């Protein structure tokens, strides 16, 4: 079935294997240096890796959801969102409707999590929900559901565990090297030292520095590839690539950063929450492909099939390499686009609402002769006319202001 993009999966798995080899090398040489036994280091590295993998496999989704402060919703709470998830679940042929979560944040973003398609969850920020029309929401949800359907989530979770293990090992090893230098030199003198020791030291240091960087680059390469594929799947599910394109455009234009995101959870979102303006097109250090490029690919699709996405990808990137394997392109046949949905509601941007409310209430305070002081932390202190104290303390940051 077209959900399974096998050959691409194989390439991703090859990259994961390279990360695994990096971890093994790192463990072996650090073991050789610190414990005089490569095997011991190897076993230690594998133990750390297995424990972290188990946690990620069984607890990963709940950890991610609680870190991003998502709350689960029922259909009655947000019927439109829930219906769109159901619609895309039908279009993607997913066996079970994923749990739907809301993150109360004016930023626009979304992610999916869960180790397999029957235990999946999908989280959407309230900002996204308020500002996207139905077609755009379908595009975003379709993108997330295709991560579920292609089992990208498990792949990325396992990758990030490998990366995390490599980073943690290197970090602790470098600390040990600095602070444990004394005991090290004592052992050196007893074992006699020699050029072999120095070579091991050099290899260990080089691995300590380079392994995390390489692992990170591999991880990002896998992540970017999965994003293109999810875009292609979303276009196929909705038969309307313009929906996702204009959603991405709106998300890119919204300035509000997502407060609950951090570097570790960044690749899970539909766009990188830490994106910077004017990112280079071939940026190796990015979790996601540049949004402008994703939008251009989606907009230059002639139909909705994988073949169309592939052609658009090649035209926009001016490269001959395919993002989707030839076998999948041939099997899908021609798929025509559909017309835009009929729901044209354009919800009002939340931030403008908040801004307007603030201005209005400030006006009310002024009319009642309240005095205001703007604190550096962004809070506006309001004091009634009867306020007689010389100083006032900001309730947010604690700074003392003279009235």
């Amino acid at each position, binding site marked *: *079935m*077209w959900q399974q993009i096998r050959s691409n999966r194989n390439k991703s798995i090859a990259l994961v294997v390279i990360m695994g080899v990096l971890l093994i090398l790192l463990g072996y040489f650090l073991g050789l240096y610190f414990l005089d036994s490569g095997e011991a280091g190897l076993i230690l590295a594998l133990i750390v890796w297995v424990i972290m993998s188990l946690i990620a496999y069984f607890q990963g989704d709940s950890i991610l959801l609680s870190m991003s402060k998502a709350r689960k919703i029922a259909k009655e709470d947000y*019927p*439109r969102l829930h*219906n*769109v998830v*159901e*619609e*895309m679940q*039908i*279009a*993607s*042929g997913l066996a079970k409707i994923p749990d739907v979560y809301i993150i109360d944040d004016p930023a626009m973003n979304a992610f999916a999590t869960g180790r397999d398609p029957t235990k999946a969850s999908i989280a959407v920020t309230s900002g996204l929900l308020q500002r996207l029309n*139905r077609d755009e929401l379908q595009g975003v949800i379709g993108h997330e559901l295709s991560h579920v359907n292609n089992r990208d989530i498990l792949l990325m979770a396992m990758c990030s565990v490998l990366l995390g293990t490599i980073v943690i090992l290197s970090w602790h090893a470098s600390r040990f090297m600095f602070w444990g230098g004394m005991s090290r030199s004592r052992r050196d003198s007893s074992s006699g030292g020699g050029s072999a020791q120095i070579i091991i030291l050099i290899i260990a240091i080089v691995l300590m520095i380079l392994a995390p960087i390489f692992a990170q680059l591999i991880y990002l390469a896998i992540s970017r590839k999965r994003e293109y594929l999810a875009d292609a799947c979303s276009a196929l*599910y909705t*038969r309307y690539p313009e929906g996702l394109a204009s959603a991405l455009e709106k998300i890119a234009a919204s300035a509000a950063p997502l407060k609950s995101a951090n570097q570790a959870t960044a690749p899970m979102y539909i766009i990188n929450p830490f994106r910077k303006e004017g990112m280079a097109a071939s940026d190796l250090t990015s979790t996601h492909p540049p949004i402008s490029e994703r939008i251009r690919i989606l907009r230059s699709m002639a139909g909705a099939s994988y073949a169309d996405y592939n052609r658009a990808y090649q035209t926009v990137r001016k490269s001959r390499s395919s993002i989707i394997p030839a076998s999948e392109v041939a*099997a*899908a*046949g021609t798929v025509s686009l*559909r*017309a835009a*949905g*009929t*729901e*044209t*509601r354009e919800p009002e941007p939340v931030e403008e609402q908040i801004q307007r409310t603030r201005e209005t209430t400030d006006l009310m305070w002024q009319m009642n002769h309240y005095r205001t002081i703007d604190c550096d932390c962004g809070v506006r202190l309001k004091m009634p006319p009867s306020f007689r104290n010389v100083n006032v303390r900001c309730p947010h940051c604690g700074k003392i202001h003279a009235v």
Partner: protein
Amino acid sequence: MAPWIWIIIGIIVIIIFIFIGIYNGLVRSRNQVKNAWAQIDVQLKRRHDLIPNLVETVKGYVKHERETLEAVTKARNLAQQLSSAGAGERSKAEGELSSALSRLLAVAESYPDLKANQNFLALQEELTSTENKISFSRQFYNDTVLNYNNKVQTFPSNIVASMGGFKAGEFFEVTAAAEREAPKVSFS
């Protein structure tokens, strides 16, 4: 026994396993097609269930549109009666229901009181979504049929398919003219 006998037995066993694999794959695809077909039914039935509610809600507000309301109820009852009939008749009835429904909702546009009714807004969302679900379940049905037909018609699985009596599935073609257009359930 001579070694070549073992080689032949080994080859036969491998062929049998490949055969079993392909056969099971075909059965899985055929079940997927059936499942996808059932999904369309579920959504059509959901629309039938929503309409009496809609008519009840709208009735109090649109006093002068008795004909439009009756047309919807009639189309809905006819579609429900034909739900076990052939695909052709059925899709015609459902098509008529779609157009009757869109007429009613267009009429509802000119009643601001109705558009402020929470119950109506909830029904509007449900109907929009059900229309989308109907078309997405059709789309998915056609996708599964395509996948199944590819298996039935391409080598080597076509050999197993002809031996096991697997026949190519039919695509869901929209016949009624009204159905071919995008369902207009918008009242923004």
